[in-house]
């Protein structure tokens, strides 16, 4: 039996990974929930967020807390890019077959990957963690970096904020109406077009934020777009596409299965995640907390 401090370390490690991914995954889930488009390019927006965070850091110059400006700034810019993509391109996809949506968003993945390569090259880029969170605290014998603690708190806070937005605000009522019946909502005079743009921008914001927040613990490299989209897909499939709390649960399950899978099957921990996804797709295709699709 491993030491308790070690088990705790694994748990915290898994939770950190979960919450990093949740930020990005919930964006994908929200976009799907409202727009009914599975955006393959969501990982590309995440990558854009990471590169932009580095870029803004570079413009700002050295400064212990510039990271926060960079992270927020990059997420806002990615939201703007998302809004533009929705208005100019996605607009034409609604109501088309899924295959076209898939092909289109995949094309977007390739285009954005090349854009990043042209602008930032192929070199590895890295961002330092903000000075205020550069330390660590020992909890139950395990050193937990403050930045990781921040992410662990941010995840649930973000989930709560999104829940309040969707369920306790006037805007949320309209958004939920758009999920249920977009035609009826349009007939009632709401501008469904702008609701869609807003939701896509919000989803893009979360993707960009996820990408920016991850830069202090990861390398910014070409290919991080595809890497993250796979993980994020697993999470939303496990939790249920379009379900916010499902995505949260999916992220937590993903992180813990991975962290403890390493203990049980050191070389096959990634397999356990895929196996879990396969089982859920067979037994409960709409995910743990998702709703059966009706159309």
């Amino acid at each position, binding site marked *: 039996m491993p030491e308790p401090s070690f088990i705790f370390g694994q748990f915290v490690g898994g939770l950190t990974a979960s919450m990093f991914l949740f930020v990005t995954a919930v964006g994908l889930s929200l976009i799907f929930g409202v727009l009914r488009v599975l955006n393959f390019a969501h990982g590309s927006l995440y990558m854009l967020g990471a590169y932009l965070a580095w870029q803004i850091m570079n413009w700002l110059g050295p400064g212990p807390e510039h990271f926060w400006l960079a992270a927020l700034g990059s997420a806002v810019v990615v939201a703007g890019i998302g809004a533009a993509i929705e208005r100019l391109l996605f607009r034409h996809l609604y109501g088309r077959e899924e295959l076209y949506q898939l092909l289109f968003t995949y094309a977007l993945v390739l285009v954005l990957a090349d854009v990043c390569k042209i602008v930032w090259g192929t*070199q*590895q880029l890295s961002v330092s963690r903000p000075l205020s969170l550069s330390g660590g605290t020992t909890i139950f014998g*395990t*050193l937990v970096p403050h930045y*990781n603690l921040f992410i662990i708190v941010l995840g649930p806070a973000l989930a709560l904020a999104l829940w309040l937005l969707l369920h306790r605000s006037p805007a949320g009522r309209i958004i939920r109406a758009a999920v249920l019946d977009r035609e009826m909502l349009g007939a009632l005079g709401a501008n469904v077009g702008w609701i869609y743009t807003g939701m896509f921008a919000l989803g893009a914001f979360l993707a960009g934020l996820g990408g920016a927040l991850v830069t202090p613990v990861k390398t910014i*490299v070409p290919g991080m777009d595809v890497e993250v989209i796979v993980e994020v897909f697993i999470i939303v499939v496990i939790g249920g596409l379009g379900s916010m709390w499902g995505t949260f649960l999916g992220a937590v399950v993903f992180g813990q299965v991975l962290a403890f899978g390493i203990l049980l099957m*050191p070389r096959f921990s*990634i397999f356990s995640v895929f196996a879990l996804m396969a089982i859920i797709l067979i037994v409960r295709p709409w995910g743990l907390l998702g709703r059966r699709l009706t159309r």
Partner: protein
Amino acid sequence: MKRSLLLSLAAVGAVAYPLAAIAADPIRVGYPMILSGPGALFGEPSLKGAQMYVDEVNAKGGVLGRKIELISRDTRGSADEAVRVTRDLILRDDVQFIVGTLTSAEGPAVSPIARENQIVFIAPITKTDQLTAPANLHPYVFRTASTTTIEGRSAAEIVAKWNVKRIGTISPDYAYGQDATKAFIEHLKKIKPDVEIVDQQWPKLGEADYTPFINAQMGKKPEAVFSSLWGGHFVTFAKQAVPLGYFKALNHNFVGAGEAGSIESAKAMGPDYPVGIWSNTYDLFDWPAGPPAHKAYIDRLKAYTKQEYPSSWPITGYISMQFLVEAIRKAGSVESDKVSKALLGLSIDTPIGKQTIRAKDHQANRGQFWGKMKMDPKYPFAVMENVTYIDPAPFMD
């Protein structure tokens, strides 16, 4: 009799004419390389080094009076794609030689194509022992890269000098990581029998979150760790390991193979680099003990790439092209069989010193630079101190 003489004259004429036409043509060399995706970070500078050498040779009139033309193709880091573009280079672009491929999946996949088409293939980067293992060796495959055996054993030579017994490893779970780690452990046990392997972690290639592996390893309390996490994988790993106190717990008794000490990784991490660890690199722009030829090469490279601190990867392409051209010169021909024979035992003076391709396994005695990483106020990133070029000749099989 007379008629047959005429016929043969005609035949000679028919053959000689296109030969004369070819003589003015450039020698075409195919360079399949990763030019997109994460691997392009190394593939692109490697191609640049090859191109720089080609430009230098062409400026001096080429070889055998013919210029060299380098034709590159993007393998996108996949063995299937590497095979496809290599076939394409041979069939459509009519290349006479293949130099290239990067990963330990691409090299062994392309080698049979070279054998099938009887075209000389030189691998500048692929390290897996499999490429030139007896079962896979054929007259046309050569390697100017280091190997997993050389790399693992070099690291073992370093660790053997440390006062440590409990050893751990953390390496990517695929051919390269497994082979290098195995070579490290076997050689270390041989030269320092009292060591104990207390932990082995195998994150998948491209793992995004190393935290659980780092925790698991720290739980086993090793005194020293060998790793073959390379490129961006090492950077991500180190960024996650530093705040967890990993390197401190090891007293920085960590040896990062896989070019963790290359300028690419050092630059990416800047002040966050876990200084004090040991690592290796293919090349470095500041090698105080190096020969004048190396300094001259670095100066040319700086001018060619317009980079103040040039990449450590152009040397891979540069040396492989150098071997090819010198072999063509020695053979006095571009025929595959003659060039392939000329490569056996060929010794050349490269920017990093004398390199020889052994006749028995078509492998160059290619070592790497090893040293301890430290911060130098002259540079905004970590550099190697007490750089040593470890010549693998004494411990190659």
